[in-house]
């Protein structure tokens, strides 16, 4: 929690530093452009992607609105429109466009969006799982063995064919698991958004918030783990 407060302080400072136009040094009132000299301003490094698109920090977002805003900001920032401008403006346009593209790519995909939100809210980078999730432990160990055996087998043999068939079944099962996890994530997303909408500052709300974030993080990292296993499996039997 401490880390989080610290983060906010940082941002305030940066926003203050940015309240001056970087070209004409006048007080800045505009959002991305100085009202006085009409020149483009660098997007603050600490502006989160949601704010960048003028969206609330929610996990359900209207992708049509997101796309429209992305196109609008692309027209504002893209280097194509800065060809005749100063070097300073050209480099701001390049930096802003690159940031905008990353922001759009992140928010467009529901999983990346959730990972990003988790990062913002819980201040932690996503966990990278190195061992199988507890409820899949046995299943995945066995799968690894089958995979190894298949890799070493003579592909034209009857044995390989049996292994391949088994791997196909495993794949179907794992994909089913992945879909389950995604459905559970959807539920958590909904709960998160509802909690934010209520905006309560009670002890209970805080506890729920912590719980949702924790569950989200666990399922996200399990899902990534399973997804990587499936990719590996698909590549091996292809």
């Amino acid at each position, binding site marked *: 929690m401490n880390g989080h407060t610290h983060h906010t302080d940082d941002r305030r400072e940066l926003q203050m530093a940015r309240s001056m136009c970087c070209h004409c040094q006048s007080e800045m009132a505009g959002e991305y452009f100085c009202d006085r000299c009409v020149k483009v301003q660098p997007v603050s490094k600490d502006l989160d992607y949601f704010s960048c698109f003028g969206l609330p920090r929610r996990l359900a977002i209207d992708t049509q609105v997101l796309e429209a805003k992305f*196109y609008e900001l*692309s*027209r504002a920032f*893209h*280097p*194509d*429109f800065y*060809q*005749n401008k100063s070097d300073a403006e050209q480099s701001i346009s*390049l*930096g802003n*466009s*690159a*940031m905008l*593209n*990353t922001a*759009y*790519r992140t928010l467009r995909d529901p999983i990346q969006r959730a990972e990003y939100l988790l990062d913002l809210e819980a201040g932690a980078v996503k966990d990278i799982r190195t061992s199988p999730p507890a409820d899949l432990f046995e299943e995945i160990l066995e799968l690894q063995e089958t995979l190894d055996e298949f890799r070493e087998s003579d592909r034209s043999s009857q044995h390989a064919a049996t292994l391949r068939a088994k791997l196909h079944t495993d794949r179907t099962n794992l994909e089913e698991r992945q879909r389950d996890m995604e459905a559970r994530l959807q539920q958590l997303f909904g709960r998160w958004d509802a909690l934010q909408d209520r905006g309560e500052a009670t002890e209970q709300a805080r506890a729920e918030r912590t719980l949702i974030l924790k569950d989200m993080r666990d399922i996200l990292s399990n899902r990534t783990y399973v997804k990587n296993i499936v990719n590996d499996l698909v590549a091996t039997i292809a």
Partner: protein
Amino acid sequence: MTRIVGIDLGTTNSLVAYMDKGTPCVISSRHERAMVPSVVALTDNGLIVGDPAKEHLTRNPERTVYSVKRFMGKSLADVQSELAYFPYTLTEKGGVIRIQLGEKSYSPPQISAMILKELKLRAEAFLGESITKAVITVPAYFNDSQRQATKDAGMIAGLEVLRIINEPTAASLAYGLQEKTQGTIVVYDLGGGTFDISILKLKNGIFEVLATNGDTHLGGDDFDQLITDLLLKDIRAQHGLDLSTHPDHMQAVRLQAEGAKIRLSETLKTTVSLDLPDGQGRFTRELTRDQLEALCSPLVERSLGPCRLALKDSGLNPTDIDEVVLVGGATRMPLVRQRVQALFGKEPHCDLNPDEVVALGAAVQADILSGGTTDMLLLDVTPLSLGIETMGGVMSSLIRRNTTIPASAKEMFTTYVDGQTGVDIHILQGERELAKDNRSLARFRLKVPPLPAGVPRIEVTFLIDANGILNVMAKDMRTGETQSIEVKPSYGLSDQEVERMIEDSFKFAADDVSARKVIEARLDAGALITTTEKSLADGGHLVPAEEVAKIRTALSALASAKEGTDPRAIRGRMADLEHAAKGLTVAMLDDSLKQGLQGKKISDVT
């Protein structure tokens, strides 16, 4: 704002276009067509480019360079397998191919620069102003080295390359402008040497590329090669001759192969025939479209793989595609059309001339950059993943393929040993797991202040700009100091080398210009000789015999001047001839007027 032209620097043909009051137009010069064959020949009168150079393919194969685009940004090892097909000599210096022409050797960007200069001159002559800025197109699937080489070529030609733009996306701009299309479109571009597929979403003037894929080594040239191999085998069987050791005959076979391929796009069968060396007779055989298709079908199939990958990367099914656009000369082959139509389930569009559409799109992009067109914006992607080599020779990906550009990624570096003063970074491009299987782009050494291990924190920003070209910046997070990075390209010219080639090109510019003057003077002289001879034949009887004799003397004086290399002498003899023939011209005009009075309309006579 100075004018910016759009250039399609193709493997086979190149074109220049400009924007005329909101409409893109290709530029053609007085006597010639708009397409300039991408061929450069070294003749006794210096270097020549385009159609006249193409004539040297069979006459002077060792000194005539074609398909140079295949060598851009490549090392000799990359093209080892096809060296046998090229009659000119390739060597390598500092990871860059050199092409030997006479005494000198040239890098591919230098050869490309000659083609660009020709286009620049044409544009200048046509527009009556000096041209210094251009947008140049490249295959979408070109990697960083190939893009950089293209930019270098522009610089060597005296052009500021304001933007490198992808060929299929350029084509989409030309289509979008024309039809105000909305929806999801596929651009399938099969040229002479390269294949590209791009999937775009067009909405309210935004052209957003969703995915791109391709093969920088697949095109009409490869079809020609297969047919050539077939013909060579036949010649060996029928005549016991191995033509592969005769560069000039090899070129003749190749041109016959291409001609037959092109004819078979229209007809179902055609005949190939050519003279064998040293009067050993003539080789003839028939080739049917079925035979051609059987031969080329695997190559056409090969192009469908990238199409499927692009669909997958964009998360679309063939049924999501609203329109399919064909670009590039090789898409005129019926087999290509059929296969593309079968894959996407849609009849492809080819309303715009597939030869010109890329240059037209480049002109549109040039107009966007100069502020003329403001309602269109192209959001392109990087075709290949960018990463760095990490421990164990594995590539760690920083920017994934099909990421919208400009794109950036930051990576923090530190040291493992106390007092370590540098960190070596190896930048790669490609989709493979291991560093060695990907394209090495560059290496550089990050400077680090000598501190205990793990203390330094250097943030490196990898930024792919709107040209798809990588820029690297480093910042010491402790001091806030930025560091300029000297990147040594793995397969490219260093800045100093480009600098020197620009200087060279100025030095040789004088030679080049005079060579061009000779060629132009000769062309004009040839035209004058032909018309004068025709006038003598038609109206010689209208003037006294001594005048005819004078004209004949002036004619032969011009003919011998035309053999020389002094353009002023040629122009002088042309003036003499025009003077000598003045009486004849007047007499012929009078005569035709008289005939007109006899009841014919003048327009029928002249």
